[in-house]
């Protein structure tokens, strides 16, 4: 065990991730099923929001992970940029669809929650709109990977895109606050879990957040393994053509 960078070696990564994957997946299923079951069946309704409060067990973890997946892609892209570790670039590629689905879930549950609370399916609230823009960034990022033939060039181009996109995501966030002060402000409607959610909702929520995180980890490991195999397949086919 010499250094963390050892895991950037494809073979080493395959061995380690293969050993980890069953545990991570098992734990993810346990936390996710347990947390959602707990939240859905065993918690009371909120006195103002009624049963819609149960949506937070999906909405809040998905929203937290939507942002964190992008941050993980940013870090992985930077590692590729600085140290040229191929596995890092492939992990960023593998994470993007997961992040896009999480963002879509956060958006959808947010809209469904908003319907009874605000009386409209879609409210151009700054926070919800930021997630819409984040979703567009995910789509652009995925499309960029698909469009470029050479995998190293694709990794470089998506890295630049991810860097620029991150800066613009932050700028957009503040531009949107400026644009519309938002409906998320009322305390009892707030989605800020830490401040406003009682313990009885808090524990299942934390379990669900852990579940979403572990699911993300499992999916990224699994999908990165696929991407590594796809790269090897590509390399071998290229060798067969030149031989």
């Amino acid at each position, binding site marked *: 065990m010499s250094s963390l960078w050892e895991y950037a070696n494809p073979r080493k990564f395959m061995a380690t991730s293969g050993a980890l994957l069953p545990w991570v997946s098992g734990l993810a299923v346990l936390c996710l099923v347990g947390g*959602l079951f707990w939240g*859905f*069946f065993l918690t009371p*309704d909120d006195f103002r929001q*009624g*049963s*819609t409060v*149960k*949506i937070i067990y*999906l*909405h809040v973890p*998905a929203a937290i992970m939507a942002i964190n997946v992008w941050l993980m892609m940013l870090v992985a892209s930077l590692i590729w940029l600085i140290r040229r570790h191929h596995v890092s670039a492939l992990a960023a590629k593998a994470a993007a*669809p*997961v992040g896009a*689905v999480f963002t*879509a*879930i956060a958006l*959808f*549950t947010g809209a*469904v*929650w908003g*319907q*009874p609370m605000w009386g409209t399916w879609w409210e151009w609230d700054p926070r919800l709109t930021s997630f819409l823009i984040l979703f567009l960034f995910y789509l652009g990022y995925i499309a960029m990977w698909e469009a470029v033939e050479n995998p190293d060039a694709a990794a470089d181009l998506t890295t630049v895109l991810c860097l620029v996109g991150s800066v613009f995501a932050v700028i957009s966030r503040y531009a949107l606050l400026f644009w519309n002060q938002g409906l998320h402000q009322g305390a009892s409607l707030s989605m800020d879990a830490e401040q406003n959610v009682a313990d009885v909702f808090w524990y299942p929520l934390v379990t669900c957040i852990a579940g979403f995180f572990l*699911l993300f980890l499992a*999916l990224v490991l*699994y*999908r990165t*393994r*696929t991407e590594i*195999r*796809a790269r*090897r*397949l590509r390399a*071998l*086919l290229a060798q*067969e053509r030149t031989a």
Partner: protein
Amino acid sequence: MPDLGRYATEVLTAYGVSIVALAALVWLSVRQARRVRRRLEDVEARRRAPG
């Protein structure tokens, strides 16, 4: 089944769609993984075979 009151449709839709989306993501990942793995095994076998 807990009593969801008058928001039953909203809550059930949110859970239903989210779970379907996660399941679809997992299913697509698994399908793609299997496909790539099978093709890679074919090529590796071809490499090991003499000639």
